[in-house]
């Protein structure tokens, strides 16, 4: 046992770091939930319980903001999933080495890109004087410049889908790379078609990657502050706008209440995933 622990302090350090992490990072998360049921004036907290903050959110329609943002983030994740899975399969299993490396690099680079720069250009391209309208006018598809490309949900969707696409492909491709090619060959040899191989081999084994990809696309898309700011025209308010305006108004309890609702919704959306996982596990155990 002594030999298995090269630096005997390892577990101790891990627990110490974990404890500090809990104090420094996880406490603020819990405090937010607590603050949402307190009153406060500016930086002064009044220690009395209230549901006022939640009632305010309902009355000012900010619940709708959360739901609309969640729907958009879900749509973005779904788009990324549908296009990302085949790309990940191609990257992990089919692509020749150089092509895989090229695409892999193309998918790494966006992490370096500044969030507002790439969005800013979309604003120029989609605007009434922009490239898209110019092309449509020149080819006589439309007669007057179209305003609805920009400052609406379409622009937001376009703005979010690109930047978060690598977040979907990365984890899926990684989990696919770990699948032994022999399993896929065996599945074919045993007479399974591509559909059966996909359903019975690739999807179950890539499930952690799929889940990771969904989380890594949905969560940042939900909290994105740049795209709604630069491409949304204020017809629909998004979560980041809402939280930021509450915070600017020094209504921290209200903003915390919003955060708490986001947590609750995220927690609830984890339930079907967990149930699904149990079913898959049970079925695999039964089979």
């Amino acid at each position, binding site marked *: 046992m002594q030999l298995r622990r090269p630096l005997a302090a390892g577990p101790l350090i891990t627990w110490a770091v974990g404890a500090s992490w809990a104090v420094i990072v996880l406490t603020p998360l819990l405090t937010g939930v607590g603050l949402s049921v307190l009153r406060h004036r500016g930086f002064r907290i009044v220690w009395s319980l209230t549901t006022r903050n939640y009632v305010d959110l309902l009355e000012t329609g900010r619940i709708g903001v959360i739901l609309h943002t969640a729907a958009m983030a879900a749509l973005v994740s779904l788009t*990324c999933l549908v296009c990302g899975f085949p790309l990940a399969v191609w990257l992990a299993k089919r692509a020749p080495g150089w092509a895989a490396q090229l695409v892999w690099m193309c998918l790494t680079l966006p992490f*370096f890109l500044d969030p507002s720069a790439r969005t*800013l*250009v979309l604003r120029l391209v989609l*605007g009434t004087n922009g490239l898209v309208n110019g092309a449509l006018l020149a080819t006589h598809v439309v007669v007057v410049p179209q305003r609805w490309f920009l400052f609406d949900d379409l622009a937001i969707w376009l703005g979010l889908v690109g930047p978060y696409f690598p977040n979907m492909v990365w984890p899926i491709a990684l989990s696919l790379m770990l699948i032994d090619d022999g399993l896929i060959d065996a599945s074919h040899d045993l007479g399974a078609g591509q*559909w059966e191989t996909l359903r019975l081999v690739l999807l179950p084994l890539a499930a952690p990657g799929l889940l990771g990809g969904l989380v890594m696309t949905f969560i940042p898309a939900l909290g994105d502050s740049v795209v709604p700011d630069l491409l949304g025209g204020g017809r629909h308010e998004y*979560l980041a706008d809402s939280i930021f305006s509450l915070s600017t108004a020094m209504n921290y309890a209200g*903003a915390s209440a919003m*955060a708490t609702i986001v947590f609750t919704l995220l927690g609830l959306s984890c339930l079907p995933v967990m149930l699904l996982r149990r079913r898959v596990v049970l079925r695999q155990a039964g089979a």
Partner: protein
Amino acid sequence: MTDRVLQGVSRVCLAGGFALTGLIYAPVVWLAILSVSGDPLSGYPGGWSLRWYGALAQDGSWTGPMLRSMGLATIVSALCVAIALPVGRSLPRLRRGRSLLAAGFLIPLGVPGTVMGLLLFTFYRVVLGVRMGNWSLVLAHVVLALPFALIGMLIAVSRFDIGLLDAAADLGASPWRRFLDIECPLLMPGIVSAALFGFLLSFTELPRSLFVAGPYQTLPLYIWAEASSRSGHVPLIFCLNTLITLVSASAAAFMVLSLGRTGPR
């Protein structure tokens, strides 16, 4: 029959995947083209000139945020390695509490950026009354980057054969020698990815910084403020971003290529 349909569908989706990858790059390339145009704000290229680059060199307002962001990214990158390495290598070998600890470290992945920024701000500024500053930027960026760094490290650790350490011990290597000569080189992909993620995510982080930057400005904050306000300044942003993208593209290319050579592919 189903296979035929599946093949068709997956071809269409794969094409969509390439299209989305293109959608990431089209704006960036367009930005670079516009940055050497006479009137970038018209949205059309033409009238080629480098005068906006000249104006950028004249304008010194971006150097402060740039230096601050680079400093922050370096510190965050170092912290990510310093935390992810000891935690990642001993987490899978813990006898109990593994999933609890892992879940605790990975929780920030499930918190949207703006929400995390808000909650860090309310806890430290409103509840505890501490002023925001460099320390809060570092904290917020580490909270963002550490889960990614840790995942990379855990993947590297999972490929590490622990028997090697026993063998080294049998041959008389001291614990430090075992760590430095065997674990560190073999965990290098994990260490590099932790450093990389720390640097990259910090350098481009915006939603959390919005809340915790206090009196300071990071480069993404500067660019965002310029992009949404003074339109006369916007062409400078085009040039600045083209330059940053060029530098980081070559850095990314270099790292992917060098990792690809030593990595497991």
